[in-house]
């Protein structure tokens, strides 16, 4: 049961993070402009963050799907989501109207300027991360020991 739950959550969260990373890399200029619009990072940190974050998402998402360093990937993804959510909350509190660019040009499942929808979405994704942290990689993971056929 735990293994099935784990692989479902891993495929869901890992797949979404790979998608998010690839879509951001597809239009780095827009992603960098979105980071700038959040007005949280100093100017000289924006470009490194725009290049680094998508790759972290892709690598962590890939490891999660493969089931390698599963809990570490889930932890990193959950922390990233917590950070993104804090950024979104701060943008809303400061009354800044901006797009999230979380999934590049694909506005799914939230469209328009950042708001409650993005916070709920990130909370659901964080829940998936916490489930993987709790359940662990399960049987269907590259890091799990193979059971030899008993014959």
């Amino acid at each position, binding site marked *: 049961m735990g293994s099935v739950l784990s692989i479902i959550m891993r495929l869901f969260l890992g797949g979404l993070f790979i998608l998010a990373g690839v879509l951001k890399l597809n239009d780095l200029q827009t992603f960098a402009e979105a980071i700038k619009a959040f007005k949280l990072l100093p100017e000289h940190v924006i470009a*490194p963050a725009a290049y680094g974050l998508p790759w*972290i998402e892709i690598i962590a998402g890939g490891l999660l799907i493969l089931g390698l360093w599963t809990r*570490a990937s889930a932890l990193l993804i959950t922390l990233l989501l917590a950070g993104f959510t804090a950024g979104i909350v701060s943008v809303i509190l400061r009354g800044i*109207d901006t797009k999230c660019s979380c999934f590049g040009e694909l506005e799914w499942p939230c469209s328009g300027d950042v708001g409650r929808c993005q916070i709920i979405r990130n909370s659901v994704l964080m829940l998936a991360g916490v489930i993987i942290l709790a359940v662990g990689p399960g049987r269907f993971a590259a890091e799990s020991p193979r059971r030899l056929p008993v014959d």
Partner: protein
Amino acid sequence: MSIGSTIQKAVVIAALGAAAGYAHWALRGPINLAPDKSVTTTIELDDPMAADPVPVGVNDSEPGETAATPATTTPATETPPPAAPRTLTLGFEITLEQAKLLHDRSVTFLDARHAAEYEAGHIQNAFQLAADELPTDRGQQIVGMLPMGQPIVIYCGGGDCDASHNLANRLQQLGFTGTHIFVDGYPAWAGAGLPVEVGPGMF
């Protein structure tokens, strides 16, 4: 698996991602986020084609009104008009009065906000084009119609909004040298009672 080793591995994954990002940056180069602010445009103030003669914003009278004044009442001591046309050089960021001068001269206006805000009200004859729409087919179509080397006025919602600067930056990278930002944007234009339109644009 201990908590300590999980955290260590998470840090290693983050470092790997950062390294990949660094390699990507080294291959592709920096991301330019700040437009070139040295753009200038010089216009003739006595342009007979302009609808409203200078001073702008000071005199709210109808354009024809000053011309209606009988010439015979003009005292002989008044200085004659200068022979050379008076000009005004505009910087990268322009004011409401300067934006109106350019609008009167049929300069292209771009609304850098998204479609919903544009449709709720925009400067008359402005095209809607948000920076992140540039790579789309529609964005490319609009870019293809913009006058290269001519002034283009870009605005957004005024105040804190970055959208017009982002669009100016991207258009400059495509070779458009005449981009100007109307800093106070749509709220100031509409607030001054200047011509606006509602609804979707032609493109």
